[in-house]
């Protein structure tokens, strides 16, 4: 910051603000991390240990939280006896499948939308985006009926198609922004050199590849984290991780250790992916309206 020439004077007010801000940030970080930390720790606790709690007002008693012998039996139980490997597979296929379908079809559509102008383009665009914003529960009522007639309920293709309802418009909307930034002159030059249109399209793909990669990941994230579609459209044969986690809650004898372990299994891969595409996250989560 050698070039900074504006001097910020330290006044009483600004000092007070800085202290307050530091305290606030510290408090907020604890508030953010604590539930995840407790989830993580509880997944390694035996049932009775997870239920241990100090007396009300006994602040020193917080240490009982750390008094336990770690066990991985919940994870073992999930995968060995509760069929979580199947659910993990279902999640992977449903999320991955819909992401691939959405991005392949979406990039073709987005590319064309960014290259030509026609009457009603704006309306088409609005229709695409409103598909994405529709409340999932509202969409599901007719979709459930249609899918039942087509015998798609409880199958992975059905779930993939269901996730495509929100992933495809998202992909089109976002990728159009990407293609808009690629000047037509590049394709023109390719075609002058004798490439066909399709070859020219393929030639500019590497330019948008990092973005496309990031949005495949985002589509996976949206689909992976969905519960409503998984619970209704996927019920029965295509149970995904969130739906399976929910079913661990039985009226009696809730297995909290297993639920927390299932939570960790569902969450960790997505946190990792989130870090990988960190650069595109804000753009993705705000539908391209805000860029970092």
């Amino acid at each position, binding site marked *: 910051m*050698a*070039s900074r020439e*504006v001097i910020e004077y330290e006044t009483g*007010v600004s000092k007070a603000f800085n202290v307050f*801000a*530091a305290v*606030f*940030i510290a408090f907020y970080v604890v508030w*953010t991390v604590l539930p*995840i930390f*407790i989830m993580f720790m*509880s997944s390694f606790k035996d049932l009775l240990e*997870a239920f241990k*709690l100090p007396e*009300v*007002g006994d602040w020193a008693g917080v240490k009982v939280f750390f008094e336990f012998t770690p066990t991985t039996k919940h994870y073992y139980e999930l995968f060995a006896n509760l069929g979580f490997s199947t659910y993990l597979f279902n999640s992977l296929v449903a999320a991955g499948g819909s992401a691939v379908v959405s991005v392949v079809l979406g990039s*073709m*559509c987005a590319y064309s939308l960014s290259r*030509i*102008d026609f009457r009603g383009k704006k309306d088409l665009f*609005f229709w*695409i*985006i*409103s*598909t994405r*914003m529709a*409340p999932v*529960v*509202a*969409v599901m*009522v*007719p979709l459930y*009926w249609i899918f039942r007639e087509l015998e798609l309920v409880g199958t992975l293709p059905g779930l993939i198609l269901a996730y*495509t*309802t929100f992933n495809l*418009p998202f992909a089109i909307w976002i990728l159009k922004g990407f293609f*808009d*930034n690629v*000047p*037509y002159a590049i394709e023109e030059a390719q075609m002058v050199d004798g490439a066909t*249109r399709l070859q020219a399209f393929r030639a500019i793909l590497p330019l948008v590849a990092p973005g496309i990669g990031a949005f495949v990941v985002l589509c996976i*994230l949206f689909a992976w*984290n*969905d*519960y409503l579609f998984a619970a209704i459209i996927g019920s029965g044969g295509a149970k995904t*991780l*969130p739906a399976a*986690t*929910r079913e661990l809650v039985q009226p009696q004898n809730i297995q*909290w250790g297993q639920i927390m372990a299932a939570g960790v299994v569902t*969450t960790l891969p997505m*946190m990792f992916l*989130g870090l990988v595409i960190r650069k595109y996250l*804000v753009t993705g*989560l*705000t*539908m391209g*309206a*805000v860029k*970092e």
Partner: protein
Amino acid sequence: MTNASIPSAVPSQKGRPALELFRVRHIPDSVESRPSSAVVAEPTSINPPGSKRYYFLLMAPAILVLAFISIYPFFWMIYMSLHDVDIGKIEWNNFANYLKLPNDTRYIMGWLLLIQYSAMCLFLQIVIGVFLAVALNGSRFEKVLVTTLLMPMMMAPLVAGMVWYFLYNGTFGWYHWLLQSLGILGPKSILASANTAMIGIVLVDVWQWTPLITLITLAGLKRVPQDQLEANMVDGASAIRNFVSVTLPNLYPVLLIAIMLRFMDNFRFIDSILVLTGGGPGNATKILPVYLFEVSFKFFKLGRGAAIAFTLLIVTIILGMILVRVFERGQPKKG
């Protein structure tokens, strides 16, 4: 605001050309770090017309798929909403599904609760999110802290709901213990009493999505033209004054987008509420989408559900129209 109210170090308009002669150009080390209000022209990407057929062909698969999963169901929804729908039979019922709605107290309450829920979530998220962004901006640990804040957003809302259900639990929940120890809550869990259940579900949404507001605000803060801030400071404006008169107006467009996005997401996602309270106790947290879910997939009154869904969808589409306007205004014009 009049010019007279700001003490000005620069001579009046007439003196300007003369001053220009003596201005020392200073080139900063990194130009990128000092965004200004300058507009950069973007390269054009539009193809000169004449070859549209090829592009329409490329577009077709996506449009067809989208039509099958959005337009076709939309007409089905209208059709279903006008009928009594049961497994194996569909009967016309003279708009009964719609005519019943105004007398359905849970439907009306659903709307009111949805508005209340969204308002509470948005208020807390904006206040906390913006303050957090201002506090974080330019801090030494900004990168690490922001990465930490991302974690809740990556979590499936259902899992978040489960974890918080565990934390709120009246007999073994740590947060319940904390609230009790602080004397805020009695022995009853926050979710178990009709007065506090709404606060309980709002807190989960705030926990999960405030970081998004912070991220958006941070992105907005980076775009606040530093030259304006500096000019103001040279003129003797205080930091608070600067924040109110320069930073906030610049943040306003991104904040509007953030508000709209979160507002629509409150309509879209009910995963965590389904786990936390399922709409209870009583109907205290039965916001409209939850009620819709119950009618359609618990009692399987799909015709009635379709009528409710249709009204919800119409409102969402209107909100979406507003949002698209906001988007278009937020983005720099091309050409």
